[in-house]
């Protein structure tokens, strides 16, 4: 604490001395909690570096993307059909949506039938993962195609998705989800435990969160192995491209001549980082595959263009796996804004490429509101507990002390959508 006090005093002195830099240092974003002091960074630089920073360049003459950036708006990935080809909301529409969302989320006593698996499943999630982020300007993150929708899946991708869905439904068919014909059972019907419960999944299961009916990534109602659980529960949810999810995210960008490093503080201690080489060197050999692919950067005027290939078959993004190809464009629009645009391509998955655009806001460096320590795995008592619990249920069933585990739903049961209902007027007005 002593150190902290001295630090604050030190910064106060710096502020007094460098009032001239006030414009540069004013990087707070309205609505963020006030920071104890503005950025001290530029003040401690040599004079020529400060001049370069003012011009939006690093001291070595590259466009300057550096700093702590956040994305904290609610924008649906795909545009609801009622908005057609319109890219932006009016201010009135945003205000109305914020109000409606707040009213739904404010109904804290809204519950599924007490005692049902949907109700129990929501006990924790409905409170913790509720999102109160304000609605953004855009009607969808997708800006191309013009209707704001992910392009149709190729027949090959549809087949793969259907195979995963059939397996999901088979594992749910003896549960109340199918007995009561809930949305989670969509495409299936109630019946005795499926012999498929003993099978390996038809494709590597990857989805980071509950996909819902037709979600496609493959959350399954089984806990035989850690591999049955989704990547979020395995502490491996981080994916590129990352659009912030329910919680939004922070990025820290640090540059050097020839390299741009980005740390993604994202998703419940599942952050990750990449160092993008600015180089004309070729990508990795095609048989060397990585979870986050292989990034190659170049400067195109003020824009950092990054080509990403070599994704792993375990990588999952909206139905695409190892053939995912990204072209990212990072542009500093002004002191407080980076525009991120990514063109997403995989001819084996989609009938055409599509593009997503986001704007990131500069955060105060001093406040250091960044958590560069992803320790989900270090504290993953949940996985052992979940698997041990499944083994205990199997023993109880074998001893005649409990129900057949195949009749219970632990995943894909529905009943949770970031605080909103699955359907109807309680559902998220941005995605219904």
């Amino acid at each position, binding site marked *: 604490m002593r150190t902290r006090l001295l630090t604050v005093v030190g910064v106060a002195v710096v502020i007094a001395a460098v009032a001239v830099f006030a414009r540069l240092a004013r990087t707070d974003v309205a609505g963020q909690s006030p920071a104890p002091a503005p950025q001290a960074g530029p003040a401690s630089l040599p004079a020529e570096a400060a001049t370069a920073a003012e011009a939006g360049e690093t001291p070595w003459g590259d466009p300057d993307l550096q700093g702590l950036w956040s994305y904290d708006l609610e924008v649906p990935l795909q545009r609801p059909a009622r908005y057609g080809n319109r890219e932006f909301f009016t201010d009135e529409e945003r205000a109305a949506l914020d109000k409606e969302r707040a009213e739904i989320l404010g109904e804290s006593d809204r519950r599924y039938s007490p005692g049902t698996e949907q109700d129990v499943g929501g006990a924790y999630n409905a409170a913790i993962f509720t999102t109160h982020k304000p609605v953004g300007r855009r009607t969808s993150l997708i800006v191309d195609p013009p209707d704001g929708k992910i392009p149709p899946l190729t027949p090959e991708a549809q087949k793969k998705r259907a195979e995963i869905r059939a397996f999901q439904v088979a594992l749910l068919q003896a549960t109340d989800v199918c007995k009561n014909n809930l949305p989670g059972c969509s495409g299936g019907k109630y019946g005795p435990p499926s012999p498929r419960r003993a099978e390996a999944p038809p494709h590597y299961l990857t989805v980071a969160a509950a996909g819902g009916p037709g979600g496609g990534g493959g959350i399954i109602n089984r806990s035989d192995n850690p591999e049955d659980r989704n990547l979020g529960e395995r502490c491996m949810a981080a994916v590129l491209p990352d659009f912030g999810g329910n919680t939004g995210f922070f990025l820290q960008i640090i540059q*050097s001549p*020839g390299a741009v490093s980005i740390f993604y503080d994202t998703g419940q201690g599942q952050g990750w980082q990449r*160092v993008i080489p600015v180089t004309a060197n070729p990508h990795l050999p095609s048989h060397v595959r*990585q979870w986050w692919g292989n990034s190659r950067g170049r400067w195109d005027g003020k824009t950092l263009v990054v080509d990403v290939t070599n994704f792993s078959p375990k990588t999952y993004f909206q139905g695409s796996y190892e053939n995912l190809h990204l072209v990212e464009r990072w542009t500093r629009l002004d002191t407080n804004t980076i525009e991120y645009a990514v063109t997403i391509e995989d001819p084996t998955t989609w009938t055409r490429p599509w593009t997503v655009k986001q704007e990131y806001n500069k955060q105060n460096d001093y406040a250091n509101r960044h958590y560069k320590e992803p320790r989900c795995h*270090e504290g993953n008592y949940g996985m052992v507990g979940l698997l041990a619990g499944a083994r205990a249920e199997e023993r109880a069933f074998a001893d005649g002390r409990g129900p057949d585990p195949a009749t219970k739903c632990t995943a894909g049961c529905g009943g949770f959508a970031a605080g909103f209902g699955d359907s109807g007027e309680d559902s998220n007005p941005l995605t219904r």
Partner: protein
Amino acid sequence: MRIRLNGSMISVAIAAAVVGAAISASVTQSAGQASRPGQVAGRPNLSGIWQANNEAHWDVQAHAARAGAVTQPGVYPLEYARVAAAPVVALGAAGGVPASLGVVEGDGEIPYTPEALAIKKENAEHWIDRDPELKCYLPGIPRAMYMPYPFEITQSTNKIHMAYAFATTARTIHLDQVDPPPTDTWMGHSVGRWEGDTLVVDVTSFNDKTWFDRAGNFHSDGLHLVERFTLATPDVIQYEVTIEDPKVFARSWRMAMPLYRRMEPNMQLLEYRCTEFAEEFLYGHVRKEQLVKRWEGETMIVDITRKVPPGDKFYEWFRK
């Protein structure tokens, strides 16, 4: 003290001689990775991909070679005649520990308090149960600096990013003033400054969960480091770290070693996302059907016991 200092100076001198040609040719180029300026905003440019090339990740202290990372009594009742224990016996000669002069300055010994020394010895005996590296936990500093994986430095003016291949972890060295972290951390809170051409980094806010090596050397949450990075040649960083932790060590002590630039053409940091690789180790016992079984017939049977001994001092200390 003198012996170790001389050792590092000699290795630096040798490295300097080896790359002398490169220095005289140009300080702004180095083979392998893309060319880079020798300086960033007037400071030596430490950017690039680096790796220690020593045995410190096995044991930072001076040690003779041993049969395995874990051993058990052999046919002789002698310490120097132990054999590899079950968990590593299947690896044969690849499971042994190479000898090293160590990286601890002075007599090569870490000045543990007597109580802490007893914990260190227990740690070594229970390496498999206790080493956070085996679980793919965040490695901490200084361990991440000399693990057998490359790491990359991205040096800017007010921040320096260090990205480690192991567990794809990272730290930021803040050269400007920032709020400290709200809680203890695995990787520490790093605040740097330049002293001439040397980057000096003060690291605090540690938890008590990381180790120094695979030999059970450990610290408490009172750990405080002062690291010094000096570019000895364009392709060698002389790395020195002073370690202070009054709960565990009788006095502060130092480690020193060169870090070498990875010179391969198109060298890049690749993922070692070991969370996935540690799942069998961590969760294999709660699978519905075990994957790793006793082998039969001509096939080797490897029994591994990962039981925490009752009344284990480390675990009691750890839980405090």
